């Protein structure tokens, strides 16, 4: 059975994507010497362009292959993820996007340190940015190995390592040459292809079932080993622990998105708050279409391919969408889906790399080491160097984590973002008294409790699926720490502020509040 179609064709379509994007990156990037060019593309993108780019940044390979696969195999439970991922954008729209655009320039640290003591707060912001970006990136790169096996027919670890390194090198090239502008165009091209691709598949599937959702659902249930349970929630959540785990994950999803550093950084690529608002509107629109389409694709894969064949193939759940593409469009459509999946990894990792490098160069180098007096050219040089280091780390991490089950890292990155970043951002923007101590307590309290809870969770030990399945030092029953760590972070921020003698600077607070709402001085 040829589950992979033609590896040569898959490779060709992907090479075509790389060639086109490299050309675009080369054309749009002039010199990228100023910090504003490198970090924020000169803030010259429009809201609609940035909205599509956000979509490209946010929809990782896990969203595309993972959610479609989860719906195909587990049914409704997969759909629950999509809803969390989408609703999360309301937090960004209402509370974060415009205010962050008005107060910061390049990084999350700009906003958090605005009215606080610069050094400790920027150090905390950079720590959180680097930890989250690294976890998120590791999940992407580790997934690349499985994808290579599935789509390119490369099964040896050595061969996969070579492909992972090629992906890493192309990504580093995008970031070095293109800066934020080039990276943004890669996101835009990728998001457009991805959304077009899923919409076409959806329309085809709906047509095949006479535009009757009910007929599609019946057929999906008939070809799935879960039967009609496929259409109901909770197939995976039968015990109290698993139900709490699900609630914990849901909280992390909707509160985490607006605290992801690579998402926050995208708001600086537009000229003003109004364009930041438009960005979110476009992103919400594009993602609503995408997640609705994955629902149809997931059920369609169950109906036309069947859960048995999906689980028997190389990539298990992740192969649902590619198998369906092969079923309805032959090798060519499979090639396109494969290329889009690769492009997705490439684009997301590029976005993470530029975020991590910006945070290190801007927060750590320029503001902590050089006390805010760095030469722009030197700062960009540091950022480029960091991008290379981060890229190489991503390649090494990807090769080492290849084949490991690290999908939980994405959910974990969301939990980190919700526990460390969102609490401090909201306090900083909306609570007058919030001060440096509160910021540090909230960030380190959130990050620390997350790390500790994960370390003592079934993810690390004490369960058959754990990283160390042989030993058992598990103390905390949930795999996602959000339910506990998010409240801890908010509480720590409150207590740190109330218990410290330090007073918030009223003039700085006035400046930040006025600037955040009106953009005066931005």
């Amino acid at each position, binding site marked *: 059975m040829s589950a992979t179609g033609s590896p040569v064709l898959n490779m060709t379509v992907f090479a075509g994507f790389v060639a086109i994007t490299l050309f675009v990156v080369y054309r749009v990037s002039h010199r990228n010497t100023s*910090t504003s060019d490198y970090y924020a593309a000169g803030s010259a993108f429009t809201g609609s362009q940035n909205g599509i780019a956000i979509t490209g940044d946010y929809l990782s390979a896990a969203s595309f292959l993972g959610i479609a696969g989860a719906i195909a195999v587990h049914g409704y439970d997969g759909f629950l993820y999509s*809803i969390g991922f989408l609703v999360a954008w309301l937090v960004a729209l209402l509370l974060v996007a415009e205010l962050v655009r008005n107060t910061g320039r390049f990084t999350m640290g700009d906003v958090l340190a605005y009215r606080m003591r610069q050094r400790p707060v920027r150090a905390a912001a950079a720590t959180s940015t680097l930890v989250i970006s690294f976890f998120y990136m590791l999940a992407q790169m580790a997934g690349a190995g499985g994808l290579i096996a599935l789509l390119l027919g490369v099964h040896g670890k050595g061969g996969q390592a070579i492909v992972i390194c090629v992906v890493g090198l192309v990504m580093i090239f995008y970031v070095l040459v293109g800066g934020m502008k080039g990276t943004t165009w890669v996101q835009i091209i990728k998001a457009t292809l991805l959304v077009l691709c899923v919409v076409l598949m959806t329309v085809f599937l709906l047509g095949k079932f006479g535009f009757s959702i009910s007929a599609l*659902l019946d057929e999906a249930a008939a070809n799935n080993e879960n039967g009609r349970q496929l259409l*109901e929630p909770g197939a995976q959540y039968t015990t109290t622990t698993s139900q709490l785990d699900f609630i914990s994950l*849901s909280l992390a999803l909707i509160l985490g998105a607006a605290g992801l550093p690579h998402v926050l950084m995208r708001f600086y690529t537009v000229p003003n708050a109004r364009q930041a608002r438009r960005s979110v509107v476009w992103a919400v629109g594009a993602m*609503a279409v995408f997640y609705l389409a994955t629902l149809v694709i997931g059920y369609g894969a169950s109906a036309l391919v069947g859960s048995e064949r999906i689980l028997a193939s190389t990539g298990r759940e992740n192969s649902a969408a590619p198998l369906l593409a092969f079923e309805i469009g032959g090798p060519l459509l499979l090639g396109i889906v494969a290329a889009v999946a690769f492009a997705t990894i490439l684009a997301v990792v590029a976005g993470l790399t530029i975020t991590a490098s910006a945070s290190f160069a801007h927060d750590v180098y320029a503001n902590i080491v050089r006390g*805010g007096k760095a030469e722009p050219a030197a700062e960009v040089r540091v950022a480029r160097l960091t991008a290379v280091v981060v890229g190489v780390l991503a390649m090494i991490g990807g090769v080492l984590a290849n084949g490991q089950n690290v999908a939980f890292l994405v959910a974990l990155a969301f939990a980190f973002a919700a526990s460390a970043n969102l609490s401090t951002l909201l306090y900083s923007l909306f609570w007058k008294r919030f001060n440096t101590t509160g910021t540090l307590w909230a960030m380190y309290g959130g990050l620390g409790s997350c790390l500790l809870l994960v370390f003592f969770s079934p993810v690390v030990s004490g369960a058959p699926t754990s990283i160390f399945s042989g030993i058992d030092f598990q103390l905390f029953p949930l795999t996602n720490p959000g339910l506990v760590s998010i409240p801890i972070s908010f509480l720590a921020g409150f207590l740190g502020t109330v218990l410290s003698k330090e*007073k918030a600077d009223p*003039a700085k607070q006035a400046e930040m509040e006025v600037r955040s709402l*009106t953009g005066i001085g931005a």
Partner: protein
Amino acid sequence: MTQVVRPRIASSRPSPGNNPGRNPGSDFGGITRQSSAASSGPPGQKATDFTAIQKSPEFTALRRRFRGFVFPMTALFFLWYLTYVLLAAFARDFMAHRLVGSVNVGLVLGLLQFASTLAITFAYVRYARRRLDPQVGAIRSEVGR
């Protein structure tokens, strides 16, 4: 290079109790606040009295309008999402109840989450265009920006 120029009090409104904060760095135990690019305007820009703006009726009205919309709306969608999640976790039979053909309550509620997200998005955009943006424009033109 981009020194934060502390504002002259441009407004006629006195701002009692805020003057100590005017002295940059003094209230942070001697640690001088770096005037990073993020926390200052372009060089040569006229100083702006943010404290006076913050106390002005135009700005307090803007803040009231903004918070009066986003806080209740956030509470609303958060509770609505939480209800949905709790139903999915604990009320499986209810969610599995069939409505039309194989379409059940769970699927309809899930699609309603999509619908409410889009509806809140457009409601906010409309509200911002009508009630927030003009007010921001008024404040900005008042301070000459």
